[in-house]
């Protein structure tokens, strides 16, 4: 029988490890590396960006430019990835050949290619790494790529392999995989299958806010809005991330509770803008989305979508830019970036729906209807409640 709150238990273990390491006399780099890794793990698990920023500071101090430690660089690159600092990831890899040439480093390079919209290069990179290191996370990477490209059978096959590599000692990773599988089902409108995955994730690793917020989205998509709202509120009490505030606001709006929604939106926007004011870039795409869909403010949406596009040009950021142009009443201008997004390997029902709207608005009605049909075929529930991730 699995303990109910695995998340709390793991956090407690991490806190204990950190206390123990903090109290022990520093003995070589191994000690310092373990400690910073524990802090990183703790911050990641909590979804705590402020704590991650502190870890970032520690890493900057620990990494010696003249001889960067590949393990620390790996942590730094992961952290920068989490914060969408792709140039920093590239710099870290370039500055540490030991990491860049290792299997984990090459996986990160492929991740970078994916974020830059270079899907073929990413796929080749993942395949190469997998030859050397057939670990669950590398299978998961390939699954994610196939999922984005609409190749569900391949995605499921890679997810199967990833699952098969995971043991009972890695239940959090297993739960995370279930969430990815659930997202795949959700994005195809297979709500019951998504629910099964999310329930399995909860059984595997109980008490995790990440599982809860996925379940909340699904419940809302299924029309169980009150239950979804209750979960969001519970999650937010522990993890007040702005994208969850926005999701909660959108759910309230979906339920017709506009005043309540506005409260959540205000808090979300405040946090997004505060993050941007700090020079952080990981909420740029949320800001673009927020202004495009919540405020329907094309000017602001263009500002933030443009900033994100400058950071990483991929089908998603191109589509967001096109959508911002559409919101700004520049539908004809939106055609070009949206067509570039559509020409990629990526397939996404929400993007297809946006493409349909843009084409309609630009007078390309037949093309717009074609995109609308494709969106419905890919996900019959695409018009329902969903969260921007």
């Amino acid at each position, binding site marked *: *029988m*699995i303990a109910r709150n695995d998340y709390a238990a793991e956090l407690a273990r991490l806190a204990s490890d950190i206390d123990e390491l903090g109290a022990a006399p520093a*003995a*070589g*780099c*191994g000690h310092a*590396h373990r400690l910073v*890794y524990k802090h990183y*793990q703790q911050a*990641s*698990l909590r979804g705590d960006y402020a704590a991650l920023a502190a870890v970032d500071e520690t890493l900057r101090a620990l990494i010696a430019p003249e*001889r960067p*430690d*590949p*393990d620390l660089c*790996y*942590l730094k690159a*992961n952290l920068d*990835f*989490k914060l*969408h600092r792709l140039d920093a990831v590239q710099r870290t890899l370039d500055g540490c050949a*030991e990491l860049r040439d*290792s299997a*984990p*480093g090459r996986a990160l390079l492929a991740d970078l290619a994916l974020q830059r919209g270079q899907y073929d290069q990413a796929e080749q990179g993942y395949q190469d790494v997998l030859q050397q290191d057939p*670990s*669950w*996370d590398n299978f*998961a*990477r390939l699954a*994610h790529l196939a999922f*984005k490209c609409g190749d569900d059978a391949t995605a499921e*096959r890679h997810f*199967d*392999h990833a*699952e*098969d590599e*995971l*043991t*009972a*000692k*890695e*239940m*959090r*990773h*297993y739960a*995370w*995989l279930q969430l990815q599988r659930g*997202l795949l089902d959700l994005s195809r409108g297979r709500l019951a299958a998504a629910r099964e995955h999310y329930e*399995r994730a909860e*059984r*595997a690793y109980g008490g995790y806010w*990440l599982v809860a917020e996925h379940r909340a989205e699904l419940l809302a998509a299924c029309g169980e809005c009150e239950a979804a709202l209750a979960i969001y509120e519970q999650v937010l009490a522990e993890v007040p991330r702005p*994208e969850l505030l926005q999701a909660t606001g959108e759910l309230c709006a979906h339920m017709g509770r506009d005043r309540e929604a506005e409260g959540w939106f205000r808090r979300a926007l405040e946090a997004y803008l505060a993050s941007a004011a700090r020079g952080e870039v*990981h909420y740029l*795409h949320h800001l673009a989305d927020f202004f495009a869909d919540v405020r329907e403010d094309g000017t602001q949406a263009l500002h933030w979508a443009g900033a994100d596009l400058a950071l990483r040009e991929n089908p*998603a950021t191109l589509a967001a830019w096109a959508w911002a142009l559409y919101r700004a009443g520049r539908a004809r201008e939106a055609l070009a970036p949206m067509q570039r997004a559509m020409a990629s390997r990526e397939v*996404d029902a929400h993007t297809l729906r946006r493409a349909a709207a843009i084409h309609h608005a630009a007078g390309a009605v037949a093309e717009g209807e074609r995109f609308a049909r494709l969106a419905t075929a890919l996900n019959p529930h695409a018009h329902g409640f969903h969260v*921007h*991730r």
Partner: protein
Amino acid sequence: MADHNDPNAVNTIFSDIDVSAADLYDLFGFPSDDRDGGEKVVIALTFAAVPVAGTLDTDMLYRVQISPSPRAVWPHGDDQSLDTLLNYFDALKERYLGPSSAAEIRVTVDEAQRAMLRFFGFPGGDFTATVDTNQVLTINTPDGHAIKTYVGGRDDAFFNDLTGFFRSINYAPQFYHVPHTRPDLRELPIPKTLLELEGNDLFNADPADPDWGYLNVHGRPNGSKRDLPPGPYTWNGNRFRKDENGDYRLVYSGYDCQAGKNVNAIVLEIPLTFLTREPEKDRIVNTWGESWVRKAAPKVETIPDHPFWLESPRTILDSFRLDDELKQYKLVDTDGQPFADAGFSEREDSRQLGANNFWLAPTFIKRTAHLGWGFGPSISALGLATCFDHDNSPVSVHKTYDHVLAAFPRSKKLLFQKLRMPDDSWNPKGLDIPLRRPVEIFIPNVCAIDMDTTGTWPFGRRLEDQVANRFLAMFLDMDAEFNGRKYHLELLSDPALWQAAPVQPKTSPNPLHNDREFLTEFPYLAPPWSEAYPK
């Protein structure tokens, strides 16, 4: 758009996931001295004391596989050709992949720390028994046999200078913080050696820091690891180090790094007549152990089988043998012969094939030659004769092989030579039992217990065997003589040899006795150390 995809979950390199309950330590096997009621064989599988000694991990499944057989006589005489070797491996494939697969005892422990032992494939039929852990108990089988059983914590029966061994193979993680991202920096490309190499500052002992490399070793309070210095990680010297008196320096110290440590163990004393219907004929009890960890999915629920099972070489092998239960677990470790992993398989996960390690025969041959270039010149420098052809190299050489054809001529004597025993005590009945050869010992990777011997290594493995010294003795030339006697497997445990050799310290490379006296009765392994044992 899958932004904020949780990288914490796609980050396994720093994984501090504790799977060490899967880390098998040793497999002991010998005929029991207790012959009351007939011949019995003792088999003890030891593994990491995780969570603690006496408490076993409920996600683990341990298998003790057993395959009795007649004593095989090496059919090739003194022929030392590669063809002979390949024919031998071919014959093994038939034996271990054929229809007569091994019987097994499968052990799991539930949340209440009750051990379930399931017996499969034995002549008397399959059955299951559930026993309390940490107690000596008897399982009465359906066909009327009594099997003594102990599942629980014990003292680690292995006594060994592990630090010395790791120094001999330049295994950096014992001495340095090696980045997780650099698995290539574990076994550094410096010659393997029994003697310190002049200028090998990466691994030679540091008199000013005597506990370096002894982290977490009992009695070495200042045990430490160092930060890995920048490379190069090679050695460019041309001789062994000598001290001011002209003596070489042994990389071993004879210190027992396992002293004061506990293990968890599965210990069984099984009547031979339970294992085979032909005990007079099946005089060899081949046994090996495996650890399996439960997969994540079955921990949540049972899920359908995946086509995965037919997609990799090891899986193809498994698909013929795995039953539904084993498909829910993942093989982690195997144990048959001591040093088969650390010495010959370079500790690679993909090489955990147990008795079916004949797949790895080419690797074994190449690795043997690699080790020979390291240990052979060390042995020669001590004034001893080695069976390895190192072209009279005055110092150890780091050499690896891509092809078996190049490696085999160097190591063929090492592979084929009969390993002489120090006296006749191993063969109390005075039977015509052939001495064993390294190739027979390590491929297949099983503990082949000869029921007509005492079961001392390599005719099994007794608790009191100093197997590390015997392993090194395989590199000696068994045709040579020391003090008027032919070389034998115990020569490196002979104090007279070290007194005579130009080396310091004048001690056996490894300790000659366990830190705790073994018991004369079941379960034979000494009780666990109380400080690590749950009260």
